[in-house]
């Protein structure tokens, strides 16, 4: 073979490569198999695990979040992107967060804050159109909750009062039961005593 063998062998390999590209070409043209997603016209389907900026969950029963301002997330966050404050709220026992600022420009989407949250009130949001005109990506996570806060407090008060009442009732019941038991015991004892006496 030698010289000509090399030349023609090489030529053959080139043709086989060209057959591949021609095949792809015709596939794209005839079967319209382009892989491009025409983004603003079609939108991607997000995976359930998709991670974007964190946000507070709105729970069904309370119609609000459940952050107790424990600051565990603020402490664990490796990117220092959470700033929150809060504490005791007038009228209810439960602590509430008053300010919750999250700087999404810094967030590394590690999910550590989700892991440590004692009330599991954090989750990833699904926003992905994150282009902006400046670097300021601080979001007030409480914005969507503020209007409901009073409602929540009212509700919570009811719940707490109810709980307190229940607790009180329970305590009383327990006390009563205890007293009753004591009485019964005492009665029994008296009975026994009298029996003993009798015998």
């Amino acid at each position: 073979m030698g010289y000509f063998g090399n030349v023609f062998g090489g030529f053959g390999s080139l043709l086989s490569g060209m057959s591949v590209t021609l095949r792809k070409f015709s596939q794209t043209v005839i079967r319209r198999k382009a892989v491009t997603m025409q983004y603003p016209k079609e939108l991607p389907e997000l995976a359930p695990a998709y991670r974007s900026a964190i946000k507070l969950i709105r729970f069904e029963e309370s119609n609000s979040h459940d952050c107790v301002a424990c600051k565990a997330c603020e402490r664990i966050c490796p990117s220092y992107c959470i700033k929150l404050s809060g504490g005791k709220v007038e009228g209810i026992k439960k602590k509430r967060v008053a300010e919750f600022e999250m700087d999404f420009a810094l967030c590394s989407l590690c999910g550590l804050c989700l892991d440590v949250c004692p009330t599991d009130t954090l989750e990833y949001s699904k926003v992905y159109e994150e282009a902006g005109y400046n670097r300021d990506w601080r979001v007030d996570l409480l914005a969507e909750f503020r209007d409901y806060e009073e409602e929540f407090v009212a509700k919570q008060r009811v719940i707490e009062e109810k709980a307190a009442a229940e607790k009180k009732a329970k305590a009383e019941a327990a006390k009563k039961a205890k007293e009753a038991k004591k009485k019964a015991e005492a009665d029994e004892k008296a009975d026994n005593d009298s029996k003993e006496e009798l015998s």
Partner: protein
Amino acid sequence: MSSDSQASEGEVYSLNMGPQHPSMHGVLRLLLDLRGEEVIRAKPVIGYSHRAHEKMAENRNTLQFLPNTSRVDYLSGMIYNLGYCQAIEKLLGIDVPERAIYIRVIVNELNRIASHLLWFGTFLLDLGGITPFLYSFDDREEILDILDQVTGSRLTYCYGRFGGVTWDVDETFLTRATAFLARIRERLHMYKQLVTDNVILRERCTGVGVVSEALAKSYGVTGPSLRASGVAYDVRKAEPYGGYDRFDFEVPVLHEGDTMARFHIRIREIEESCKIIEQAIEAIPEGEILPKKMPKRFKLPEGEYYFAVESARGHFGMYIVGDGSDIPVKLKLRTPSFSNLSAMPETLAGTMLADTIAIVGSIDVVMPEIDR
């Protein structure tokens, strides 16, 4: 350099390639001394994407360092992320549930394939073939989508936790991964037709940039680049970690040490990774993905520890010095690309300018990993 030797070398001029150059893989800068098109000396200059990950590790607790790991090497972020978890687990004696072990192996190998595919594409781009680049990115995109399903991110994963992973895989994930294996096998056949058999590629790569076994060993070259030089060293086999000893796979070795050998090794590694994934999908048990009992704080015992994993580019080691608190005194990351690149000045001397691009492309450097 004295003027004498300059005269004896003829007309030598220096060319500054990078850090902004189309084929310098991020921000590598090569100072080349050229005579005509022949490279006389090559000097890599690094440090353009230094982010002080090691220093950051000294200022935060072990858990908080997790998101950093995948940013060290964003192309095999999963391997780095899980590797770090495995190091800490071994150190603290945390048992990983069976299911988590298998999940980790699957996502690790998927990530390895993705990284090799990206290398394949960019390497061909360096050689001037643009179409294979887009084909391989199409395949890689599929992997990223699959991984996105469970990790929620596409590149800088923070999927691992000490003791397990954050999100359980479901049937869809497993079927998609299986489907992908079939797809990539078919595509590898196509790549062979389009690229591997191509006479131009063979001419460009064969015998170019030979890294001898001795040279590779002396610079601590690892990963596919080392295995192309005839050393069968793979951390997954040499010091099995994370359950790799349960799987049946080979470590491909070639002896030529040239660019073509490095090319073939990576293609064959993709096949081997497919084998591992297949076995793992078959054998994955039901169960928990995180251990039930976990320490509250991950305090590092006093002393020095070393743990290594095989990343897509080679031996990635973590040298941890603990002092009893949960903040490491020192966390040194031994990244493979750094050593691989160190062997370049000797390899590049005497080659053509176009070969330089091909050779640097073939060792698959990721600059942020070198700079850390």
